[in-house]
């Protein structure tokens, strides 16, 4: 009994410490997951002396945690994001993973003096990426990245785990001597995993939606039902040799994009569970490793990490994304932020469980590769996004919304919004607000007092609005009550705005810009759409003479607002611009040194060059 209480005490203490460490790490901009991992290491054998050596239970906990993380990833992926990235991400997750694994594997063979099977096994273990880590890092700083890149990274990470798992288990089978299976049989096996995983995932996702919508449950049970169903799908698929990882991700995708009763509660709950899973997973992996055993292998493992980051991933991304017309910047960014998260360390337990010789080598190398990736790439995600001009201002603030569930409201929920300054809802009179179907504004509170509808002419900032709304239209309301960022402060999206319906001829003649006769006849929106040449995302830009045109707002795939950038910075990759950047950097350093030498009183006021 004593021991049970001790375990609960230590476990909860670790969770608390993890959350606090997370807060501290975001202050210094350190990757959150790194903090969790470090905490586990500090608490472990070489630090405070906690002994945790059971690879078996670690694998058990790890599987469940990964399944939950994948399910949550699916739940939060919007259909548009998925459509935008399906092609590129599937290619990245299959061909890309194979290329990455092979190159990293070769590096492991030479650097660690391993056999080919063992080397390639290491390649497979470290081949999958973790998008959750990337988004955590960006959101930590309140930034967004270009939707196309974000969607690709996110969807890729959902899809490449199953393939990495397959590669790893196959190579483990080889390494343990059962190398009887011919290539054709292997391919068949892979196809079986993929098909079963996809079929069960899609069908299971639909059943899950029906279950949640049909059963009348006490409010708190709805999300538990969803989670239990997801875990059941995951494990069930694994048992019949399908890919449970694929199944649970797809089930999440289906559920997240269907009409789901109490969807907000379910989403929130799984967000929390995904956090818990990340925390547990990383702290546990930190505990499991014996830091002083890592040291002998550190140089070789770092070599593998560098080859992975600088050669394998970029090459794989280049080969996979070039056919999809990704720009150089987009490819560079995707290549750089192929962050490694918990999956490689998790996969590295499989050799141990299969009792392969030197199994601790796999674990140590995987651990070090993840550590190197978190430090090197994790720390530089935000600057890389800025440098490659893929950073977007964040214009949606979901923080203003509060959801209330009422059992008697049928398929509708009550959402409360606090109206922020500059919200589009302030533009019109209360009567003329463009509300989606089946949506009612049931009350407006000003300074805590319910307003009389007859006297209410227009909403004011800081009013609280209660809306009765079907869950699928909350996004429309979110947009109406969202804060808009000041574009001048964030000139990323252009100096001026332009109506997409304006004829090109009118626009180019006004500013003396070049355009062919054919282009002059088109509306600007059509011209921009054609020049982008793929599904547009916010922030897509094309050069036109001295200016850039940029997509400011979209309604689905239709461009609804265009920005004009008057002084576009050159591509970060062209020679002139790199030289200018270096010069600016050198100038900044010189100024900093000079300032340090000058007494405070005689300093000139800072000239607004940070603007």
């Amino acid at each position, binding site marked *: 009994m004593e021991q049970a209480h001790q375990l609960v005490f230590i476990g909860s203490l670790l969770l608390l410490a993890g959350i606090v460490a997370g807060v501290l790490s975001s202050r210094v901009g350190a990757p959150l997951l790194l903090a969790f991992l470090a905490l586990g290491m500090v608490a472990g054998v070489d630090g405070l002396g906690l002994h945790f050596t059971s690879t078996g239970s670690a694998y058990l906990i790890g599987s469940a945690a990964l399944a939950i993380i994948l399910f949550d990833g699916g739940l939060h992926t919007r259909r548009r994001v998925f459509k935008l990235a399906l092609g590129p991400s599937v290619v990245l997750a299959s061909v890309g993973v194979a290329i990455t694994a092979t190159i990293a594997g070769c590096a492991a063979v030479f650097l660690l003096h391993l056999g080919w099977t063992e080397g390639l096994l290491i390649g497979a273990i470290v081949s999958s990426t973790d998008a959750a880590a990337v988004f955590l890092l960006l959101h930590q700083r309140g930034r967004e990245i270009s939707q196309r890149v974000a969607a690709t990274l996110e969807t890729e990470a959902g899809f490449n785990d199953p393939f990495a798992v397959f590669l790893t288990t196959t190579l483990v089978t080889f390494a343990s001597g059962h190398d009887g299976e011919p290539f054709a049989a292997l391919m068949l096996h892979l196809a079986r995993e993929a098909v079963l995983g996809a079929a069960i995932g899609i069908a299971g996702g639909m059943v899950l939606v029906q279950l949640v919508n049909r059963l009348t449950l006490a409010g708190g049970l709805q999300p538990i039902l969803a989670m239990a169903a997801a875990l059941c799908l995951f494990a069930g698929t694994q048992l019949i040799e399908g890919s449970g990882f694929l199944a649970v991700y797809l089930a999440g995708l289906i559920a997240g994009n269907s009409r789901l009763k109490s969807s907000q509660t379910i989403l929130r709950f799984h967000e929390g569970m995904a956090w818990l899973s990340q925390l547990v997973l990383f702290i546990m992996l930190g505990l499991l490793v014996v830091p002083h055993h890592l040291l002998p292998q550190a140089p070789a493992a770092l070599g593998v990490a560098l080859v992975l980051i600088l050669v394998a991933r970029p090459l794989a991304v280049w080969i996979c994304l070039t056919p999809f017309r990704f720009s150089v910047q987009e490819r560079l960014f995707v290549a750089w932020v192929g962050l490694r998260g918990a999956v490689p360390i998790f996969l590295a337990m499989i050799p141990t469980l299969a009792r392969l010789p030197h199994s601790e080598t796999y674990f140590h190398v995987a651990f070090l590769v993840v550590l190197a990736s978190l430090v090197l790439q994790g720390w530089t995600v935000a600057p890389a996004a800025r440098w490659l001009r893929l950073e977007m201002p964040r214009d949606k603030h979901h923080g203003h919304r509060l959801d209330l569930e009422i059992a008697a409201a049928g398929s509708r929920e009550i959402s409360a919004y606090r109206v922020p300054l500059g919200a589009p809802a302030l533009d019109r009179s209360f009567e003329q607000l463009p509300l989606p179907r089946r949506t009612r504004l049931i009350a407006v509170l000003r300074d805590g007092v319910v307003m009389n509808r007859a006297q209410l002419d227009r909403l004011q900032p800081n009013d609280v609005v209660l809306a009765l709304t079907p869950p699928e239209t909350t996004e429309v309301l979110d947009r109406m009550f969202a804060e808009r960022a000041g574009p001048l402060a964030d000139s990323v999206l252009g100096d001026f705005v332009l109506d997409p319906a*304006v004829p090109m001829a009118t626009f180019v003649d006004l500013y003396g810009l070049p355009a062919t006769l054919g282009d002059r006849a088109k509306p600007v929106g059509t011209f921009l759409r054609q020049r982008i040449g793929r599904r547009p995302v916010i922030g897509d830009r094309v050069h036109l003479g001295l*200016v850039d045109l940029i997509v400011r707002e979209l309604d689905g795939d239709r461009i609804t607002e265009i920005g004009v950038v008057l002084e576009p910075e050159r591509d970060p990759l062209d020679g002139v611009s790199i030289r200018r950047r270096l010069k600016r950097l050198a100038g900044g350093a010189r100024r900093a040194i000079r300032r340090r030498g000058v007494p405070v009183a005689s300093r000139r006021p800072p000239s607004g060059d940070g603007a």
Partner: protein
Amino acid sequence: MNIADLITPQSVIANFRVSSKKQALQELAKKAAALVGQPEKLVFDVLSERERLGTTGVGLGIAIPHGKLPGLDRMTGLFARLDKPVDFEAIDNQPVDLVFLMLAPEDAGADHLKALARVSRLLRDRAVCAKLRGTDNADALYALLTDERTSDAA
């Protein structure tokens, strides 16, 4: 291109009183028409024509209405600091109180864009805007706008 090439002390107004976007454009057109010796109606039409393509209220209380005026011989600017901010249908829906009007000759070409870029860069500097808002004297405003030290930082 310098701001001093675009405005003179005569083309800076410190306490401009208007109550709507339309009135602001009308009154500014009247002042600008007097500066360049062209009919007021023509200037107003050019500015309204441009607003139809998309608002020139660029956010944070700033507007840069502009257009090309036939028969003009040089780029001409006009700066007005509004007494009370007016609704300008700006991108961020915030009322506007600093207006930099720009008129370009028919054959201005690239200079038109360069001048606009220069003005936009100047007014993007929050420190400069804060000073402009805190000054109600035309000469002081002119000095602030044309002070290359404060305005050429970006």
